[in-house]
């Protein structure tokens, strides 16, 4: 019982200031991340919840994440939380909701525009490791957009896949749905 009292007191203090946690990447990057953002990384969240410990400033090493990716992840998650809050505030007001939605779409479009195909792939790997649901969904959508309506050669190159069809087999598939191969965007 007494313990609980101590715990809640500590938590109350941490709410007052923005608690941060230090994350270290495999290539030497060090980031101070706000608690709400860090808790979006389910791999971290489960670590804290399993241990049942009070959130305190410790340093965590992320072995599979590089600093460039982590900085992008932090950027996205921070903005995502902001949009979430704005959305909640605008609930009920259709016009306000639409504005928030458009703002978010604008941010996401810009964010993904700056990413090269390589970077996009690296981010998916990082986000998959960190287990961030919303961002993973966003990245998957972005990859789908990148490869939609593209030639087969482009898709193979994007995923680094070797063609293991014989020319006859490929021809057959082409014939079965010829229309699907027309009108693709130029590489």
């Amino acid at each position, binding site marked *: 019982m007494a313990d609980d009292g101590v715990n809640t007191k500590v938590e109350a203090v941490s709410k007052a200031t923005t608690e941060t946690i230090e994350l270290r990447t495999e290539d030497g990057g060090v980031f101070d991340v706000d608690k709400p953002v860090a808790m979006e990384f389910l791999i971290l969240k489960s670590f804290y919840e399993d241990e049942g410990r009070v959130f305190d400033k410790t340093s965590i090493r992320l*072995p*599979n994440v590089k600093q460039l990716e982590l900085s992008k992840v932090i950027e996205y998650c921070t903005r995502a939380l902001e949009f979430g809050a704005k959305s909640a505030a605008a609930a009920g007001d259709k016009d306000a909701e639409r504005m928030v939605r458009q703002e978010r779409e604008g941010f996401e479009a810009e964010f993904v525009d700056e990413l090269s195909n390589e970077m996009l*792939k690296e981010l*998916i*790997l990082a986000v*998959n*490791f960190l287990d961030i649901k919303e961002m*993973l969904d966003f990245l*998957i*959508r972005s*990859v*789908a957009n990148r*490869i*939609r*309506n*593209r*030639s*087969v050669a482009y*898709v*193979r190159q994007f*995923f*680094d*896949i*070797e*063609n*293991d*069809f014989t020319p006859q087999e*490929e021809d057959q*598939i*082409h*014939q*079965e*749905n*010829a*229309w*699907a*191969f*027309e*009108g*693709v965007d130029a590489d």
Partner: protein
Amino acid sequence: MTFFFQYLTINLLSRKRRRRSIPPISQVTKKSSSSAAAGACTTILDLPGHILIDILSRLPLGSVLSSRCVCTAWSTLVSDPLFTSLHIARVQPLELLLRANGLGCVSTALHLVDVDCIVKTAPPLDLNERQETRLNTKMLLPIPEYSIESRGVDQNDSSSSNSFLDRDYGIVNSCNGLLCLSKSIYNNPHIICNPFTGEYVSIPNSQGDDRFWGPVVPGFGYCPRSNKYKVVRLGFRLENMFQSMAEVYTVGTASWRSIGYAPFDLGVSLFATYLNGVIHWVSDDEKGPVFIVAFDFEVEQFSVVPLPPHFGETHKVRENLHHMNMGVLGGCLSACDVTFVDHFDIWVMKEYGDPTSWTKEYVIQTHSGHLHRPLKVLENEDILMIWDKRELVLYNPVERCFRYLRIHGVLSVFEALIHVPSFLPLMDAVVGDNLNVENIKTSSENELLEGAETLFLVEQGKPRAESQSPLLWGTNDER
């Protein structure tokens, strides 16, 4: 919905592991994967298979099909029926098909409209600017005339390379990716087909089939509980010209069954609309009251669906009462009240079967209300419609403006159909012992298609505000 996807993806993954053990990607793509740090992913190839499935299931239909060509593993993945159902649930590729259908001359080519692409293309900026979109994707109606056996028999060679036939087929309605076709004169349902796979089955003509007096009212649908496809028809048999009879054919069985008298006299089938196991028609007796007749395929019974209160009562143009352009919008039954002079209302039945749930969703100001047939509400909340059977319309309810895209073809009158593409083979989709599936897809289908015309969508001028009446298309821009 999210739970459903996760359930399906996990299922797909575990099923595949049991059956064919394909994922993760690195094992199948024959590229050596780099370091295998425990549990860590170093390249995209080491990602769990469910992420790949997630990506592919978000692609539009054409991309999904072309991804079959990427490598053998992807081909297997994409052809799996479980993937198909996940894909359809996700992308909801309700496609728009157009078919030239003028008086006495009906085309057998279906043209696919990429509505998404049109919505994303900005409209012209001023009145004199004109924008054209070519409809590249065509497919032929799978009918016996195009199957390889009968083609040799057909003496009239020119008709086989043309997409207009003397004996026309009408489209009854679409259901779960299948179309029901009828032979025009009596409107007797003849064929169930899938235009995307090219497969069809013929509906057996039982004895006395052509002995109908006048046209028949057909309907096609699916019973989810018993997993059967059925066709219903109402008509006057020559033996009894005063009482309409109803008959049902379960696809995959040998013959039609009579289910007694049809409790309603529907002269012509108007706006046949399939929704959740029930087919609906609008009564067309212009002197009588208007109502919606429903036939439930599962219990094989008729009923009346009540219309919204005061529907069509303030009718200035009473003869338009039955032109209510019934359809399905947002998964609900919809009907338009087009009896007003300067506007029309779109009603939607939010809770099926509950007449109090009819909601007047849209009130659109225009003088030609009855010519606007709503087809679908798009993701960006625009309404896709067809106007006067010749133009596609995108109506923006927020900005209150219309984009009109004229359909250019040899004929100038078209029918539009919202259809869910499916690649499930008919053998898998339909259960039954009496199923004789034919297919028109051979290498020479492409030759036949070359003879089919190409349609264009032409948009002239910037979007028009609701208060302005649509420009009447003159003859100066005929092709």
